[in-house]
């Protein structure tokens, strides 16, 4: 129905901006409708990191696009929190400053959302309460080991021990 779509659009639009500014420490992000007909219109996204006048979202950098994508997913979660959120190395393109802000957003949301995240990044590992290590001591066969956070940060420094 038209009213419901407009309502969802407005809520996600304002959440998107909220999470975007949290991850980038400023700037703005918003959604636009491509057509007047609420029942059929497409939706486009626009984002401006702090101090920039971006003409076209495709000009954004790899890390900026990842940050906007994360903000968009989280803005949907706020409206309809699915039982869990699975993230596979979404932090790979982020620099340390944006990654730190991303981690604090996840920490905040984890009060109501269950996160399961895959990462190679030591500072993201420190966000976890529980770390599960996957090893392949026997080539081609996955096994689980439980790892404590402090140990993990050392382990990745010397990946040999996880992969041997």
């Amino acid at each position, binding site marked *: 129905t038209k009213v419901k779509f407009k309502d969802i659009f407005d809520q*996600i639009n304002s959440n998107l901006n909220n999470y975007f500014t949290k991850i980038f420490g400023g700037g703005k992000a918003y959604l636009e409708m491509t057509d007047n007909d609420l029942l059929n219109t497409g939706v486009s996204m626009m984002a401006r990191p702090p101090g920039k006048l971006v003409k076209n979202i495709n000009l954004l950098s790899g890390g900026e696009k990842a940050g906007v994508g994360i903000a968009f997913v989280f803005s949907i979660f706020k409206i309809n929190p699915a*039982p869990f959120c699975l993230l596979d190395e979404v932090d790979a393109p982020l620099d340390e400053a944006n990654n730190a802000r991303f981690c604090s957003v996840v920490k905040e949301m984890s009060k109501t959302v269950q996160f399961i995240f895959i990462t190679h990044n030591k500072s993201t590992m420190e966000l976890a309460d529980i770390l599960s290590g996957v090893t392949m001591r026997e*080539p*081609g066969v996955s096994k689980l080991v439980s790892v404590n956070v402090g140990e993990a940060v050392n382990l990745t420094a010397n990946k040999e021990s996880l992969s041997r």
Partner: protein
Amino acid sequence: MRLSKIKLAGFKTFVDPTVLSFPSNLTGIIGPNGCGKSNIIDAIRWVMGESSARNLRGESMDDVIFSGSSSRPEVSKAFIELYFDNENNTLDAKFARFSEIVIRREVSRDGVSNYSLNNTRCRRKDIREVFLGTGLGPRSYAIIEQGMISRLVESKPEELRTYLEEAA
């Protein structure tokens, strides 16, 4: 409703029965390249009804069954079980009486899958029904695959619209 654990057997590199539990809201998964981390994500999407082999990085549906290694022969079937704790009953009234929901999918080399819900055989449609309205599903906004987060902002306007509709 929250995901309490996942059981894998014969699925991709998880040839031996393996249980991964999620006692907290912040679980990290780490390990070297190729060790099986993303295979866990594939397992969760598969048990929830993913029907495209390509979306599981394979060519045919039996590519999810362990195909052997230098020290082990291939196996003939695979199964995945997801255990949900439904204490606070956020699902449809129909499922209110279950405090735990277990969905299971198994497949054999002929590519035929069987689904079951709390140990009772059911159809793929029934699994999708469990998750209706929760935002979950094999291609839901709640599951971000490796490398896809940056491509999300490059999606076409009609694709972005479907994300909003899923949230409704």
